[in-house]
């Protein structure tokens, strides 16, 4: 009987382990689709975890973006050219994870300082999709909007970490006095501007538009999500309920979806953005 070292028990165990390890390290086969397929998730939706394992099971759609050069103010220098999209739903909530390469994380707001941001657009309701450029009068769209700055808690300290502590009288005032002072010193807060206050305190806003410049936040918009910047790329989850999309995304039905990304480092903001030229097909798994 001949035995070789190769056949020793430890060697066989090592080989088996290596095979397991190789399987774990091998990138999961990503299915690339020409449309956005929102898979029905097996478990809970990872609304606040853009890196969750569940996303790896969803097929990916790569959307091409181009500079908004239809209406002024236009984006003068092209920004983020592509965004990779995956989708999950649980019958109640619909979540899309957008991923794009961006070496500079911009999460601050300031004079000439702009945050990175992303948006997903759906037609409102069923029927033919309206203009992909934020809808048209009578053809509204619903837009999920995420801004990196909405995840920065103390903006002033983030902007100026070494600034001395400052006393703001209105912040220590109470009751009616505080309301009066807030009106003078923080008017946007006083009127609940969505830049300051969003339902559920999520970094994602649900808004409606009927053309450029008409974006209006929906005060009762249910949203969730989160963005994480790691290894030179953003991964951002933008989520809302299917109900909020009013029929444009229904399990078992085809719909439409479009995207936009703003690169803060390139001073992208508002109309100065990279966006889809055409609607992409949206399929929500039954």
């Amino acid at each position, binding site marked *: 009987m001949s035995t070789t070292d190769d056949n020793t028990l430890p060697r066989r165990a090592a080989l088996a382990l290596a095979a397991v390890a190789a399987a774990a390290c091998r990138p999961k086969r990503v299915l690339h689709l020409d449309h956005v397929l929102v898979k029905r998730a097996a478990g809970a939706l990872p609304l606040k975890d853009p890196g969750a394992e569940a996303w790896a099971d969803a097929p990916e759609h790569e959307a091409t973006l181009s500079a908004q050069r239809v209406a002024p103010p236009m984006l003068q220098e092209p920004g983020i050219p592509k965004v990779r999209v995956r989708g999950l739903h649980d019958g109640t909530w619909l979540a899309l994870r957008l991923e794009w390469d961006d070496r500079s994380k911009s999460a601050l707001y300031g*004079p*000439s300082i702009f945050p990175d941001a992303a948006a997903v657009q759906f037609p409102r309701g069923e029927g033919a999709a309206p203009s992909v450029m934020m809808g048209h009068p009578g053809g509204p769209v619903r837009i999920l909007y995420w801004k990196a700055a909405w995840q920065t808690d103390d903006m002033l300290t983030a902007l100026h970490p070494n600034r001395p502590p400052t006393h703001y009288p209105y912040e220590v005032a109470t009751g009616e006095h505080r309301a009066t002072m807030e009106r003078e010193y923080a008017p*946007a807060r006083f009127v609940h501007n969505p830049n300051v206050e969003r339902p559920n305190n999520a970094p994602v806003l649900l808004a409606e538009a009927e053309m450029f410049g008409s974006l209006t936040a929906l005060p009762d918009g249910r949203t969730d999500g989160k963005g994480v910047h790691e290894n030179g790329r953003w991964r951002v989850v933008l989520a809302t309920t299917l109900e909020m999309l009013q029929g444009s995304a229904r399990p078992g039905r085809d719909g439409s979806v479009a995207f936009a990304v703003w690169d803060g480092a390139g001073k992208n903001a508002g109309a100065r953005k990279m966006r889809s030229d055409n609607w992409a097909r949206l399929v929500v798994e039954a």
Partner: protein
Amino acid sequence: MEYPYEGSRPRRQFAGLFDINKCIACQTCSLACKTTWTSGRGQEYMFWNNVESKPRGFYPLGYDVNILNLLGEQAWSGQRYEGRTIFEAVPEGERVLGWRPAEEDYAHPNLGEDEIHGSIERGKALSLPQENWMFYLMRTCNHCTYPGCLASCPRGSIYKRAEDGVVLIDQERCRGYQECVRGCPYKKVYFNPCTGTSEKCVGCYPKMEQGEVSQCFAACIGKVRLQGWVSQPAQAREDNPVDYLVHVRKMALPYMPQLGTEPNMFYVPPIHVPDAFLVQLFGPNAPAAVRQYREAKDDPVLRGLFALFGSTDKIISRFQVANEVAVAWDDQGRELVRVPAREPVFTRPAVDRLYQIRRQNTT
């Protein structure tokens, strides 16, 4: 002029008169505004009212030279401006000609304060390529008739009130794109990092609605300012103090009128500054305005009108000077104030015998 919206003038337009020659740069106006409106988080760097030392002071840095440079050389033909405004010289893909300051451009609110040069101690001289003059320029939002800020907002979040011409940013609609910061050539819109919205001078409209002057006007200890209403040239009234100085005498001039926004703050130019600089800043009428100002002491109406500056906390609609007394009324016809057209001079002896003290001359 090519403005992106149809012209629509307010029912009446609030306006300010500023006698630059009397300003002492005490910044009381700046602080009156600051404590009233911009003492909140994110508003630290905002000066809706600021006073800068011209020609080397700016807030933010280089705002005026930058826009003039972008606009390039343009032509006046006599009193008529024949050049392009920020609404015609629009680059492809933009709404108005503009630029946006960087954060560090706001780092020195009073850069170049009192800066001047001349001989310094013991005959040593510091020589700089600049002339031996300076003046203080007090600036608020101009509540322009054709606001660059309003034209540049793609969301229509900025509006001009029909009742008084005050230009406001709707704090609910603003989404903080900072297009208005780019579009205002006077850089009188500020972005608030803590609310993510842009903010600007509100003209103290709650006071205005009560017939009272704005905080920076009320607080001015130099009696530099007078707040009122400006009419269209064809409707100018001689008994309206603003109309009188702006339209009748053409002594109070808009700041950088060539930009095309039709600003509604009017300046009596400083008398000791080279004409070329004054013309660039205040247009071709500046040298004549200076000449009239030099002679104002011999002009009873001008003397009386200038004595009314800073004399009341109410908005003056009508004035009259007769028998060396200037009288002002509000728009209800109520008398607001009456002042001597020539301020009496009191000479106090250096030694006060009653109190047994010596007086110091502190000025």
